[in-house]
């Protein structure tokens, strides 16, 4: 194409410099500096010291209890919750995506409206939808009233890991279903028939053909669920009754409540490095040309 058109990319190069590269460098910059009493900046490692040191809090997992620094504790807890939530999204979402894809493949109908219904809730504000779970899950809420009919409960769903996990699965499930569906739906029906003709029972077809073929979709789904689940501060804020500290809240509090930009930025940098590293692992497993592709694998 005409070389003069390259000039059109120059404003964009400037744009990504200002709005992508510089802001991220600024986070690193603020992580290593602080304001003294005169309002001038000086170099400091306090931010990182706060992240890796400071008060210790007991961390219990599988009956094991260790004293860990506050933020490390919070970090590990966030990661664990996010991983469990991603796994649940996958276990719940994969069958749904497969059923929908099969409808499309076998009957070429039905799945449009289902897909549409899957995306539709996103048009209602996510905060409100999450908040509505409170009404459902309260001790005297709708779910417990329903359980009460069978003489069960009341169960304390809220303000604990369960409530937060549920909020996450609820919010991120569509992001798991969509990419998996978009891969599954491309599987040619003749391929499945061929496998069956060659003697594979449905279980083997699933394990040996469908599952391996849907790997890019699964990875993309994990990508779209794990990171948001780990960094959200809304869900623990709303469903944890304001008394639940995950890494997202911890960072948000540093900026908006404590006004300690140094520690907040240090936490952000640690989080970002962690996320980029784990993305790298996932990216290595996806298509090599993915960097130029669309948004969904």
């Amino acid at each position, binding site marked *: 194409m005409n070389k003069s058109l390259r000039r059109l990319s120059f404003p964009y190069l400037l744009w990504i410099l200002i709005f992508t590269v510089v802001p991220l460098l600024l986070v690193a910059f603020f992580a290593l500096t602080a304001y003294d009493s005169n309002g001038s900046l000086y170099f400091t490692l306090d931010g990182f010291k706060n992240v890796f040191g400071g008060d210790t*809090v007991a961390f219990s997992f599988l009956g094991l209890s260790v004293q860990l620094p*506050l933020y490390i*504790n919070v970090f590990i807890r966030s990661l664990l919750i996010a991983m469990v939530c991603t796994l649940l999204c996958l276990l719940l979402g994969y069958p749904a995506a497969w059923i929908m894809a099969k409808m499309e493949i076998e009957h070429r109908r039905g799945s449009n409206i289902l897909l549409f219904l899957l995306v539709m809730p996103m048009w209602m504000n996510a905060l409100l939808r999450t908040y509505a779970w409170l009404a459902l899950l309260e001790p*005297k809420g709708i779910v417990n009233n329903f359980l009460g009919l069978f003489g069960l409960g009341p169960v*304390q769903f809220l*303000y604990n890991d369960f409530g937060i996990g549920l909020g996450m699965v609820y919010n991120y499930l569509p992001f798991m279903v969509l990419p998996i569906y978009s891969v599954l739906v491309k599987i040619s029906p003749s391929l499945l028939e061929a496998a069956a003709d060659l003697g594979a029972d449905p279980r083997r077809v699933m394990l040996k053909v469908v599952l391996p073929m849907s790997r890019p979709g699964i990875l993309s789904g994990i990508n779209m669920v794990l990171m948001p689940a780990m960094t959200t501060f809304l869900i623990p804020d709303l469903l944890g*009754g304001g*008394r639940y500290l995950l890494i997202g809240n*911890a960072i948000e*509090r540093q900026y908006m409540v404590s006004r300690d930009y140094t520690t907040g930025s240090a936490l952000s940098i640690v989080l970002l490095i962690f996320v980029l590293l784990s993305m790298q692992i996932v990216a290595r497993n996806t298509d090599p040309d993915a960097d130029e592709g669309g948004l969904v694998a």
Partner: protein
Amino acid sequence: MKKQVKWLGPLLAAAILLLPLAGCQSSGKRQKVYVYNWGEYISDSDDSFTFYGQTYQLSDVRKDFEAAYPQYQLEYQTFDDNEKMYAKLDTQSYDVIIPSEYMVTRLIREDKLQKLDYSQLTNVEQYMDPRLKEIRYSEDDTINQEILDYAVPYFYCTVGLIYNQEVLGTIDSTDPQDVWSVLFDQTYNGQIGMYNSMRESIGVALNYLGYSLNSVDADQLEAAKTLLIKQRKEVQPIVGVDELKDKYVSGELVAGVAWSGDHTVVQQRLEAAGEDPDVMQYVLPEGSNISVDMMCIPKNAQNVEGALAFINYMYDTEVALKNAVYVGYSSPQTEVLKQLPEVLTSNVNYYPDETLLKTLEVYESTDEIDKKYDEIWQVYLAN
């Protein structure tokens, strides 16, 4: 592929159709009075309202103001946070604002308020409850002395213990140790309510331990933190704000921290549910928190006459009564006190007497307090 245009069309059309919705404003020759108040903090309904057995006819007092003062047109806006209100002051000019006392202190210090012309506030002069002069609004003595020159109390409220009398018996004492002890009692595991805000929680712990609500002493704060962590583990309080009220009504919670205004709401809901409202009682311990929302006029107000008329109108007995019934917080208007149900006004927990009043503290906000409180709150949250 061309059909995709149809997707966008309706979306943008909807967006554009909704736009004027937000912008319609009738203009007239009347002078505008810009009032900036908390949300849900003024009588705006035409219902009749039964309050402790007495029935009151409410009305939209904003419309009434415009009827009483035809030369003025009220532009009424609401906020939900003192800091947000503060930020808006620089870019927008309001005639009356109604922030909490610590924000008033800050505004006076920054020279952003004008002194009120009391000769035009005849209702205020006549009806303002003298006990409002006893409150210690600020640690700063000069400001404390002159705060009423700048600001007129609108409503006030206290932080106390709401409790179920049938379960706990009557609590007569106002000693913070006696009052708050139920909050830390393992017997009531899962039946205690706490607000999720930092100052209310740490404040209650400090008050229980006999310290100031604005303490910056490291040992005292450490003790408060340990107490709260222990409470969280052993008592497992239910946290929230608004949802707590229904839980007191249903009997799910037996006691908890409450603003005085919330207690009246709980009693009304009990009454509406056909139950005895006196089951849930409220007690205000010494040294607890009081907060006062105050009407004031910013320096850059455009319509000072209108502002004074509005402030004065809010102290009109009929108007103040409607607001008091609607809002449910403690009214600073003496005539209103005579017309409100006696069970309410004779209750020292709502309308504290001078001795109790003198022990109450406002929440001070300084860099040191903010930082220290936030640190212990963070550790508390992670536990």
